[in-house]
């Protein structure tokens, strides 16, 4: 029997990715030139042999719905399935559309799942983790809930508004607080929870009774004294894509071959939907270094330390540096782009320079013509 029901959760309330989120949740945004952000979490689940996966979606769901399909993620779609779920009543209200409201609306599907345990992980985190190892640690510690966390040294700049864990002896969670960027070293919650399915149902009911604004993390935080909450340390690369800068940074960081290979390898592939795009053509005079490139591009210009999405055209004389170009964009002759995020189908021409800042990358809207 399968042990784990996998729940790919909504992005938490603190996620604000300027520009990108006007068109789709960041978890459905193009990532590393080939993926969507949520491919990482779904692949973590299918690679952990979780056959029953629920993906919760909120407003602007077109990209997510179009992208998700069991066969794309190497799941036995007869024995298991990927379910896309949403909260009908709370869907259009940002404030009331908490994860709890979504779970409540779909309570029967959680109740009917045939697994003793559940792993809940939000779609906007990027890391790799075998959830069976998490479950094993959870079972061995005898905890009610196990929260996965990452010890970070950059909590001032990154992981803003994420939960931080205050840990006692034996990695027991004593308190959960928000990261307000005051300290460098913090144990950041990856908002990934392992617990029994019945406890999740209890917590959903409890949270509903407490407040319709409550998130799962709120009700867990309320119960740190009553429940035995254990922390499990994740090691290796982890990013929380909760702002435009975080999105930009993760793209650029992972364009390094060794960082990328530390996440993705033959034993731990990241699955995604194929677009049947042909390979990329680098034409005479192209100059490209330190970059990740999707298929289907035509590159004649210069690209330095950047991520170029599928089907982009970079014309001769264009220079792209430290930037993230989303799929199907056209960068014309002579355009100079630095520290920017260019959204899909944008056309940049007749302009000398588009320059953002590493700490505040410039965003160019979807289908914008500059």
């Amino acid at each position: 029997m399968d042990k784990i029901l996998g729940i790919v959760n909504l992005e938490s309330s603190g996620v604000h990715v300027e520009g990108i989120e006007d068109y789709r949740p960041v978890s459905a945004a193009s990532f590393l030139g080939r993926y969507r952000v949520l491919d990482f979490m779904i692949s973590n689940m299918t690679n952990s042999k979780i056959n029953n996966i629920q993906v919760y979606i909120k407003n602007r769901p077109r990209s997510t719905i179009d992208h998700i399909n069991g066969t794309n993620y190497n799941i036995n779609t007869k024995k298991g399935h990927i379910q896309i779920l949403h909260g009908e009543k709370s869907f259009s209200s940002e404030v009331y559309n908490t994860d709890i409201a979504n779970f409540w609306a779909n309570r029967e599907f959680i109740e009917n799942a045939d697994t003793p345990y559940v792993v809940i992980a939000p779609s906007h985190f990027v890391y790799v983790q075998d959830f069976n190892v998490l479950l094993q640690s959870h079972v061995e510690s005898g905890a009610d809930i196990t929260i996965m966390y990452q010890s970070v040294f950059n909590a001032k700049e990154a992981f803003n508004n994420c939960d931080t864990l205050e840990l006692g002896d034996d990695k027991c969670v004593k308190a959960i607080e928000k990261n307000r960027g005051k300290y460098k070293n913090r144990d950041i919650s990856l908002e990934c929870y392992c617990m029994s399915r019945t406890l999740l149902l209890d917590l959903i009911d409890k949270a509903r009774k407490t407040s319709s604004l409550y998130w799962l993390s709120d009700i867990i935080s309320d119960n740190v004294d009553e429940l035995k909450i254990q922390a499990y340390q994740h090691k290796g690369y982890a990013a929380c894509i909760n702002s435009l800068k975080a999105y930009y940074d993760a793209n650029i960081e992972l364009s390094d071959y060794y960082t990328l290979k530390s996440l993705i390898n033959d034993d731990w592939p990241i699955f995604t939907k194929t677009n049947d795009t042909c390979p990329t053509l680098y034409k005479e005079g192209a100059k490209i270094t330190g970059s990740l490139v999707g298929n289907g591009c035509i590159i004649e210009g210069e690209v330095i330390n950047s991520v170029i999405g599928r089907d982009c055209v970079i014309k001769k004389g264009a220079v792209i540096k430290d930037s993230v170009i989303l799929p199907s964009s056209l960068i014309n002759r002579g355009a100079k782009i630095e520290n920017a995020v260019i959204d899909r189908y944008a056309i940049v021409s007749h302009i000398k320079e588009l320059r953002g800042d590493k700490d505040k990358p410039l965003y160019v809207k979807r289908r914008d013509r500059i």
Partner: protein
Amino acid sequence: MKKQKMVAMILAGGRGTRLFDLTKKVAKPAVHFGGKYRIIDFPLSNCANSNISTVGVLVQYESVLLNSYIARDHVWGLDIAGGGVYCLPPREKDTTGFGEYRGTADAITQNLDFLDQEEAEYVLILSGDHIYKMNYDKMLQAHMDSHADATIAVLEVPLKEASRFGIMNCDESDQIVEFEEKPKEPKSNLASMGIYIFNYKTLRKYLKEDEKNSASSHDFGKDIIPTYLKDGLKLQAYRFKGYWKDVGTISSLWEANMDLLSDKDALDLSDPSWKIYTGDNNVIPQVIGPDAEIDTAYITQGCAVNGLVKHSVLFTGSKVDNKAEVYDSVIMNNAVIGEGAKVTRCVVMDNEKVPAGMVLGDKNSKDILLVTKAVINAKKAEEQVNG
């Protein structure tokens, strides 16, 4: 009105001996091409794009990999109700013992029961080892309009090369009057592409007769088409314009890959209205390292380049390490060009690793070097002798 059904039959049993080690363990249609494809993706994608839903693939030589590959018919969108990709190896039957396909026509004859069962009105015969994009639906329309018994797709080739092909001599309405296999003095430049549409009922009768003829080599070009002509049946030529390549040799396979780099790339794999589908791999996006130098290259996902790549095609998962140099070459799936190694005018076979510093191929050589394990080992031995 009942839709007149055309079933495609892809001949994919050939070994392709002139591809040497590339087809030692896989059939020619399964050989990789163009970065991310296999050759058989072309006829299969053409079928899918031409709204043909039932495709039989006649396999014989080293078919294990090919069988499992084509079994994933959803890759080409061919997993629809009433259709699908059928893998058709020779089989033992109630009335005959276990045989083999004795020729292209015999392969179809042995599967007449399949075509009966599919209620085919028309049969489209294709070759599993040609690279081209073609709308078979348009060809069927032309076939129906001309009321021919069979239609053969033809390509205009330069007259001086015509003696390498099966040549169709036609009248002014493109009705075929004569067929000559590799004529010394060609009378026309219309070469057969090995693509035929037959009215099934007539074909069935002729195949049954051919089966009993012990003098026949059971081949479409050598036996069936000449018999059709002799009996005065109407054979129509269908002129195809566009890129078409039979990649039968290492140099033609190399050349077809190099064509993708040309500004005049007539194949145009980037056309969104006629995509070529393939069994996609879950590999990383292509990584271009900090020391990479790339000038005129066709590179696909899963590749990692940190050396120099000039005028070359890199296939899925291949790697060009630091200071390595690749010129005018085809680097096949998961092959690695080690640090400081240099390959020129080579086809490096899948999964081979060119060791650091090794130099292979020559820019002045007329031939293309197929880099196999044996070639690498021989070079290693040579280097040891030379100290």
